[in-house]
């Protein structure tokens, strides 16, 4: 029953309205992001408080160490473990607010620089994998909807199998085949092109399976929609129908999924970076978890949360770019 937005009543609003609205939306976004970061920090903080054992002991090398009571006390004072939990929490929040992620128990360095250092490698991996997954998914979706039952079945089966591949198994299999049997690609990942192939493939293939399924379904829907019929009636070729019209629609759900996909790539990076001996956030995190290195865990979690939020904003922006309808609401 809402009156449709007609040109007339939008002109009435003048210019100020849209600007304010955009600012308001940005503000709400920012507030939401800050809230999420605060909550992530708080949950992580209190979760790690639950970890059994004296954190000072962890700083000094864990229960196997032979730290003297004096050393423990000194570390407790230095790290503030002797303060009430709530005070520690506030201190931690205060430090986080100023961008200080604290000092690693195990790596003898500040967490901020460490995590930022590792971020690059993981981002490179994630971005390449996401791009490759998109390319594979697009290729698979367009090919398998070209017509013909065989292509559709093969496409759909490939997608389901790809989506079911565990990263660790895929990585191992790729190493066996390409590094050990054929010997064309290095089993240890470097930032060289050859070194990136296997880890990127490992991350991209299962993701491509997911994205491909979604793209194929939405492509089928788009190809059956009236505007595609209209376009064909105008004399548009099959390729034109796909590239000018249908794929744009079909990519929308996959775009909004890319935020989630990014998160899953971070999860996958834990495995992939370990197997391919690549420096990165995932490997840092796994090490920190096995070492109970709380500041590093919080640091990685925070940076991943920030990256995830940015990624969500980015996918929203791309969605708006591809689907102008979203800009209106």
């Amino acid at each position, binding site marked *: 029953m809402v009156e449709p937005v007609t040109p007339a009543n939008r002109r009435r609003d003048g210019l100020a309205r849209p600007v304010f609205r955009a600012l308001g939306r940005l503000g709400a976004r920012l507030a939401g992001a800050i809230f999420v970061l605060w909550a992530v920090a708080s949950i992580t903080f209190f979760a790690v408080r639950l970890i059994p054992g004296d954190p000072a002991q962890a700083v000094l090398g864990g229960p196997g*160490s032979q730290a003297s*009571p004096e*050393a423990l006390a000194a570390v407790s004072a230095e790290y503030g473990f002797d303060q009430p939990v709530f005070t520690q929490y506030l201190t931690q929040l205060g430090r986080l607010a100023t961008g200080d992620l604290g000092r690693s128990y195990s790596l003898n360095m500040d967490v901020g620089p460490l995590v930022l*250092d*590792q971020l690059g490698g993981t981002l490179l991996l994630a971005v390449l994998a996401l791009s490759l997954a998109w390319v594979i998914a697009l290729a698979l979706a367009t090919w398998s909807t070209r017509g013909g039952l065989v292509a559709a079945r093969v496409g759909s089966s490939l997608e389901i199998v790809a989506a079911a591949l565990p990263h660790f198994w895929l990585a191992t299999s790729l*190493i066996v085949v390409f590094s050990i049997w054929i010997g064309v690609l290095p089993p240890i990942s470097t930032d060289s092109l050859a070194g990136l192939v296997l880890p990127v493939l490992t991350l991209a293939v299962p993701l491509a399976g997911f994205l491909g399924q979604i793209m194929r379904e939405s492509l089928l829907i788009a190809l059956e929609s009236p505007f595609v019929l209209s376009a064909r009636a105008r004399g548009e070729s099959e390729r034109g129908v796909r590239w000018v019209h249908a794929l744009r629609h079909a990519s929308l759900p996959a775009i909004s999924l890319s935020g989630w996909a990014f998160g899953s790539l971070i999860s996958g990076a834990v495995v992939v970076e370990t197997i391919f001996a690549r420096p990165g956030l995932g490997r840092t995190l796994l*090490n920190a978890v096995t070492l109970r290195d709380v500041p590093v865990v919080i640091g990685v979690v925070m940076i991943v949360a920030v990256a995830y939020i940015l990624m969500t904003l980015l996918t929203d922006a791309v969605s708006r770019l591809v689907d102008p309808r979203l800009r209106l609401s």
Partner: protein
Amino acid sequence: MLQIGPSIDFGPIHYWIESNNCILVGYTSGKETHSMHTWSNPHRAVRAVTGLALAGLFLTGCTANDTSNIADTGDPVSGGTLTYASGDAEPSCLDPHVGGNFPQGMIAAQYLESLVSRNSAGQIIPWLAESWTPSPDGLTWDFTLRGDVSFTDGTVFDAAAVQANIAHLRNPTTLSSTGYLALGKVASTEVVSPTVVRFIMTEPDSALLESLSQVWLAMESPAALERSQDENCVAPVGTGPFIVDSWVKQSAITLVRNDDYVSPPADADHSGPAYLDQVIWRFIPDSASRYAALQAGQVDVIDNAQPDTIVQATQSDSIEHLDSPRPGSSNRIELNSGKAPFNDVRVREAFIRSANVDDAVSSLFQGTATRSYSALSSVESTAVSDPTLFGYDPSAAAELLDAAGWGETDADGYRVKDGVRLSVQFPVSTNQSIPAEQSVFEQIQATAKETGFEVKLAPLDLSSWYAALATNDYDAVSAPYTKVGPDVLRILYHSDSIVPAPSGYFANLAQVNDPQIDELLTTAASTTDVAERTSLYADAQNRILAGFYILPLYDQQNHYLLRSDVVGLRTLPTVAVPTLYDAWLNR
């Protein structure tokens, strides 16, 4: 004793799955202070050295392989980059004074040097110190230093530098563990002249030279030590053949050649700068990836080689194998005699008789490890081996259990006594036991089950593993311990070692509490006569073995695999860390 005993300070370092055997080596030096009194008597020292020479055979056996390699390949060629892939966890600090563990030692040996070294025969040989003289009472030692050595930052290496290093090690804020403990009997140092430094002892310490030979007590530039610890950790400055160039955390450490290098140890193959231009030191925790990288030629040397890859390598022309077992204890399972069910010697023997170790070792290690029947590493001359005690004999085991009151069997086939199942809690450190070793435990679990033991293997990460030990929540455990000389027995089996340190750790995990053993070990530690000491240790070992406190498995494994075109790589006969000084690439 307790203050020194279990010097298990891992510093801030923890290990990946494969970083097994090496872990405890770093603490060796701490115990040596007790084991080597006799060195103050030069006469006896000679005899002790011959004993060690026997042990050294194992080392020469491996390196010989390598040296023959040189003969085949002609003259060494300078240049090139060697990539070393370690299976250990990446150190948090490249200065081995800080903490002091094996991974630190392995890389530090490339850019730091010690006052003395050992040759493959086990004799102490000059390095940065040209000579040394102990006072007759053993309370002062004068070291004469080489006068022509500078650190790579230009600082001159002199007596003051030695003094600064000792002070650095003893400074609590350095958080040195290994080095600190090794210097336990050093009261102070004095600069006698620029080239002579004097160590003043609180009591005689026959292990001083052994201690100083270790990479954890290597010499660093006093100017560099003045920097903050963070800075020094990233790029320690030494006198070694290589210089730390850069360190990208969790990726690689790059070392470049020290072109002004003049101070190789006396047993080196050449003099002057190293052959290699550059060394890339990587950390690849996954053993399969590490080997695949070696096969692919992506790396040139790997450590912590797994048995199956060693077997593969021996069949390959392109990969060579270097085996260098470590000193100290053997790898063995210790049975907790402090509580039921292993407080009964019959149950302990039954367990040992029910475990088919031979088949397990031969199938899993595929000939790369030899079965041990001793508490000590086979490199120890004083080791006593008694295969008769450890034969697989399920029927004897069953009789022993019947005799011990575990005659009943429950529905699952496990022995029961007073309604309690015959269970063996076996926490396994996944950081310290390589997969093959964990599989050995699984096979022991399977064979012991046939006799009626329920072995509960609990693979744990390091923290949880220590926690399980500290709370006495174990019946069996495997914890290798590296230390040169039989004095390791005192650490491991003297009843004093049952009392836990503040952190809860204790070394006598078998909880051997035998006054006779205590006395034998204490007496041996203060006995300077080699023959008498050897016999005392033999008596102690016999008692330990006969008490069925331990189930020996094999030596602590230390295998390297290298591309065939890597020539001249050897391990330092001190603690079996590799040195790349003589290595060159035959490409």
